[in-house]
């Protein structure tokens, strides 16, 4: 497989990833199946001491001690069966270390493509944002469609140190034969900020609930996600947050759209431990049903073990307003376009959190989903 790296890199050249990197990214990693085929980081970012390398090299290179200290500590193999599988067979993935006080102005990106029929991908992403540092990391996933099932059981471990900030954005567009059973977890220390931006469009079945542990005082977490479940899809997504430290806060905002028999489930948990005095948590989940052959379920859970906390939860489910469609049609817009426009507006809180190029990509995905061309 190693001999095919050059060919795979050509593929990424054709896909335009290096072009995108030149324009808007601080560094890019690309993984084909189990092998990382392309990795690059801009000189000025590397000069700041930022490490962005593939996981295998990281385990053997200069940073081996650091990697060993953190690797599979946040998601131990005993966590659940897919974490155990991942621990046994992982390959590829990225290691990122941002040194103390370094602010990476432009995002780093990893791109995962599962190309072999019937295969699994088990990449491991480990990111450490040291004290006072700042990083935006973007993860993209796709695969060609085959008639056999593929499995993605990756693992993402994120360590956000004191006063650090990490934004982790994902646009997932796996092919619709994919079982996407990814595990993502972040540990946030004092005054740290963890932001998740997540768009789930692809895969046949997804079980994905990024978890954040707010360990330090005043640690914050924000999760903004959208899920579009179309024909043949069962997308069970959401977020989990554990408030451990005092004065911690979390905001979860999700949008879910179900269409053409798709099953969309929003699932979450907010846990406020006894020590998390003055914790604040807010959850808002909106669901949109586009027909009556689909499903949309909201299954949140809250476990609160102190009186000194403030927890709010809000969920709504509904349909596209006939009045809104009529208004747009009266302005000369075709009904299909009007509905797509309303769905894009529904998704706006998520797309506005993404860099422009990715927001455009997400809106295009929504348009394709609405037209049934995916």
């Amino acid at each position, binding site marked *: 497989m190693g001999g095919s790296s050059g060919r795979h890199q050509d593929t990424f050249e054709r896909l335009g990833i290096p072009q995108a990197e030149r324009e808007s990214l601080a560094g890019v990693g690309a993984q084909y199946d189990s092998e990382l085929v392309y990795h690059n980081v801009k000189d000025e970012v590397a000069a700041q001491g930022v490490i962005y390398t593939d996981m295998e090299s990281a385990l053997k290179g200069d940073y081996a001690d650091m990697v060993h200290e953190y690797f599979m500590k946040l998601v131990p193999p005993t966590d659940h069966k897919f974490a155990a599988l991942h621990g046994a067979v992982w390959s590829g993935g990225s290691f990122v270390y941002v040194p103390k006080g370094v602010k990476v102005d432009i995002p780093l990106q990893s791109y995962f493509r599962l190309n072999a029929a019937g295969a699994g991908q088990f990449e491991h992403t480990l990111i450490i944002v040291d004290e006072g540092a700042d990083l935006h990391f973007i993860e993209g996933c796709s695969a060609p469609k085959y008639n056999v099932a593929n499995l993605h059981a990756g693992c993402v471990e994120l360590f956000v140190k004191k006063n650090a900030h990490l934004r982790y954005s994902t646009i997932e567009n796996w092919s619709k034969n994919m079982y996407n059973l990814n595990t993502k977890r972040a540990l946030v220390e004092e005054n740290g900020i963890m932001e998740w931006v997540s768009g789930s469009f692809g895969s046949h079945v997804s079980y994905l609930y990024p978890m954040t542990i707010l360990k330090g005082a005043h640690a914050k977490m924000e999760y903004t996600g959208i899920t579009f479940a179309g024909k043949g899809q*069962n997308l*069970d997504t959401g977020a*989990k947050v554990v408030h451990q430290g005092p004065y911690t806060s979390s905001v979860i905002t999700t949008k879910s759209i179900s269409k053409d*028999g798709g*099953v969309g*489930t929003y*699932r979450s*948990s907010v*846990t406020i431990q*006894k020590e998390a005095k003055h914790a604040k948590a807010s959850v808002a989940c909106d*669901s949109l*049903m*586009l*027909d*009556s*052959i*689909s*499903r*949309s*379920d*909201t*299954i*949140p*859970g*809250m*476990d*609160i*073990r*102190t*009186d*000194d*906390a*403030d*927890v*709010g*939860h*809000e*969920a*709504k*489910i*509904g*349909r596209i307003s006939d009045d809104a469609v009529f208004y747009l049609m009266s302005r000369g817009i075709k009904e299909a376009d009007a509905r797509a426009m309303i769905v894009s507006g529904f998704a706006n809180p998520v797309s506005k959190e993404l860099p422009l190029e990715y927001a455009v990509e997400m809106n295009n995905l929504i348009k394709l989903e609405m037209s049934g061309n995916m």
Partner: protein
Amino acid sequence: MDINMKVNVLPALTYNWLHVNESSIVEENIRIDRFAIPVPENLPEGVSVETQIPADKAEEIFAKAAEIANQQNAANIQGPNGDTYGRNAGQHVHTGMGIDADRLMDSMHVMTTVICAAENRKIAEPLVLHDYMKDGEGTLSRQIIHAKRGSEITVVMDYRSEDAAAGFHGISTKLYAEQDATIHLVKVQMLGSGFVHFDDIGGVCEENAVIDLIQMEMGAHKVWNGCHINLLGKEASFQDNTGYLCRYDQQYDMNYVAEQRGRKTQSEMIFRGVLMDQAQKTFRGTIDFRNGSCGSTGDEQEDTLLLSPDVINRTIPLILCQEEDVDGRHGATIGQLGEDLLFYMQTRGISAEEAKKIMVRARLESIGRLIPEDYLRGTVEDYIRKIL
């Protein structure tokens, strides 16, 4: 007698580690002395009561509704991830606590008391069933409230004992509201601090029928409540106002489900409660829009006041939906008294402690004042005042 039941199973399961998917009633050496709730001799006009009816015979009235629901299920699209509806398939009418509560009653041969409102009779006077429990006493009872077409009935049930009394109190109430009928059901629990209590409710509403439930849970040591209402007919409606007060080391476990099958059905569930001391509470509330429930609305609101650092509050509000043309929402507000409110009260010369008492009383009395029977309403107000 020993009891080991799995109850209050969430209609769609979630993470196991949250320990909210179900609850268990495990009690040893339970003594059951009585198998029916006392019925008054003088009944309101238009109300009939039959006692000692075998459950299978009494529940025949639910057969038609069960058949319609089963037909809909057979043609149904996929259930939610973690679907548990099949677990209670053997029940004539689904209840909140589930089939294990029925099995317990069956195993003890508990007969059913059937309360019936005559067709087209609007019965203004409530039927009041007082159940005063002695220390050490145990009871299991079953009732069906059947409101015939166009009728309206109010049934008030309260369970009480001395404050320090202990015992076992289990009750199952099934409701059938025929077309255009209304059932108002009021349940107030003020049992002693050593009681184990469960209260299981299941109901069916035909076209344009209403089930209106008012429930107050304030006593006992361990409490399980379940309620599952099937809004089968067009424009059927379910309203629920539940208030609870959990103190000391009380444990309170709830499972409420509004299953909306008919067109233009409505559900509105309001839960207001207070947790104090080392109390623990788990609330499960589900709005389930089934295929065909177009034009339906569902609203579920929970407001919980936490007044001790040692309380444990678990809340799981679900919306399950397989219909496009619906409007469903739920909201939960959980926390202590707002600083602004406390400050305002203190500027008016009210101490923080007194302000808390006022807010607890306001919360409980907002449900208590809905009780339609004057004497019981007064008793509840006295009970709240005494506690505070």
